[in-house]
C-alpha cells in the first residue's frame, strides 16, 4: 500500500543517524547538522542472513 511521501525531508532541518564511516558524521557536524554516530558492530554475531531476518522482525 503506497503512503504519500513525507515531504518534511525537504522542509525540516536534517537530524542524522550515521551508521558506518565516521568521516561522514564529522563533515555533517561541521555544517551545523545534528548527528548521532552509531557505535556499530555487525549484529547477530556477524551473521548477515540472521541480521536480515531480525530486522524484518523489528529487532
Amino acid at each position: 500500500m503506497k503512503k504519500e511521501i513525507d515531504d518534511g525531508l525537504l522542509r525540516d532541518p536534517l537530524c542524522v543517524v550515521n551508521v558506518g564511516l565516521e568521516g561522514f558524521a564529522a563533515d555533517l557536524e561541521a555544517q551545523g547538522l545534528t548527528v548521532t554516530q552509531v557505535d556499530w558492530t555487525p549484529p547477530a554475531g556477524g551473521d548477515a542472513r540472521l541480521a536480515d531476518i531480525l530486522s524484518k522482525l523489528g529487532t
Partner: protein
Amino acid sequence: MSAVIVNEVLRGFYLDSVALLRMSQSLVALDGVDEAAMMMGSPSNRQIMADAGILDATGEAAEAGDLVIGIRADNQDAADLALKEARAILEQSSAAKGDGEVWRPRSVRSAVKAMPDANFALISVPGDFAISEARKALRRGLHVMIFSDNVPVADEAALKQEALDHGRLVMGPDCGTAIINGKPLAFANAVARGSVGVIGASGTGIQEVTSLIGENGGGISHAIGVGGRDLSDAVGGFTTMMAFDLLDRDPATEHIVLISKPPSAAVAAKVVDRIGASSKPCTVCFVGGSEMSLPANATAVTTLKAAAENALGGSAIGAGFDPAAMAVPASGGPMIRGLFSGGTLCAEAQVVLQAAGEAVGSNAPVPGSGGLDSKGAHQLIDLGADEYTQGRPHPMIEPSVRDDALTAALGDDSIGVILLDLVLGFGAHDDPAGYLIRSLGGSAGKPVIASVTGTEQDPQRRSAQIAKLEDAGITVAPSNADAAALSLACLRSTT
C-alpha cells in the same frame, strides 16, 4: 625463498573501511611485507584478498562480521612482525574508541531513542548488512541514504517497495552524493541554494551539474541521489518516481534535472510518463542515450554541461572559452588518453568525442564506444570502476589510483594528449591538484588537459586548485565536456 602468508580472524570485530584501508597501508610499508590488507570478511572482500594472494584457510573461514588480517611477507619473521603490528594498531584503535568519549548508541533503535527528532539515516556499513540497517531506520520513520554497495538488486527493490509503503525515501544503495536542504551529504559539493532540483543515478554526474549551476550564477534546491541501479528493470525507478513527487511539491524547486545512464525502454517509458505529469520544466540527461521523444515540459540534452546550461535558462557556461584558440599542439601520437575518477565524467567525455566523429574505447563504454582493445580509438578509462578499486580507495579519495595509468600514458608515444578530471568536495582528497602535479614530476612532455568539478565553497576551493594546475602548465577547461573538446582541438591543431 618462498613467500609466507599469515592470516588472523577477529570474530565480530568491526572498523569502517576507510580506517582499515589506512591501517593496511601502514602494514604494506613494513620491511619484508609484499602485500597486506585488513578487511571485513564478506565474500567479496575475501575474494579480493584471495586475488591479492594474501588469504589462507584461516581467512577463508571468516564471516561477513569478522575482521580478517592478511599478510604476505618474504619470510616468517617479517610476517610475524607485521601481524604483531596489526594487532597493536587495532588495539590502539579500540582503546581510542572507548577512551573518554561521550556515550554512543550501539544501534539505530537506541540512536533514535536518544535523538527523537532524527529524520534521516546515512548508512555506509558493509553491503551485507546495509539493507537490514536501512530497514531498521525506515521502520522508525527515517529517510535513508545508503552509501554502501555490494547489495543484491532484489534486496534493493524489496527495500524500496517497503519505503514506498512507509512514505519514506531510500537513496541508494551505492548512492555517493546528495544535497538536501542545502547540506551536502557524503561526496557532494558546497553549492549555492537556488531553484534547480536534481535527481541523479550518478554521483559525479550530480557533482558536475550542481557545481556548474552553482558556479555560474544559479543554485540548487535539492539534489536527490537514487543509486546507480534505480532506473534498471530490476528496480523499476522507485526512488526516481518518489523524488519527482517530492520536488514537484517543493515550492523552492522551479526546474528539475534528471541525470542517468540510459534506462531500459520499459523504465524510460515510465519516467517519460512521470515527467509529463510534472508541473515543472525538466531537463533530461541520459548520458550516452539515443534520442527519445519527451513531453512538452521536458528538454533532452546529451551532456552534463548542456544539462546545467539548460537549467540556467540557456546561459552559456565558460563564455569566451574557445577550444581552437586555447589548443596546445599535441606532442607525440594522434591519440587522447582520458584518466577519469568520475564514471559519468568518463561517459560524458566519450559522448563529446563521439559527437566530433572520433572512435572511442573505454572500460566503461557508452553506446557507440568500443572496449579498451578497440583499434585506432581514443582510450577513456574510468579509474573508479571495480577493476581499479577492489580493496583500494576510490580515486576521488586516493588519487594514487591514477599513478600507474598516468605513468603509462606519459611514456606511450601513440598518445598526444592526456585528459583528466579532478573532483572536489566533501569526502574527496584535500589537494588533488597538488597530488597530480607531484605525480607528473615536472614537465609532462605532452599537453595535459583537466577539468575541476567543484565550487569556491568546497574545502579545497576550486579557484585555488585551478591556479595550482595552471601554474604547473596544465590547461584547465571550464567543464569536463569542454576539457574533452579542448583535448581534441589540441590533436587537430597538430595535424
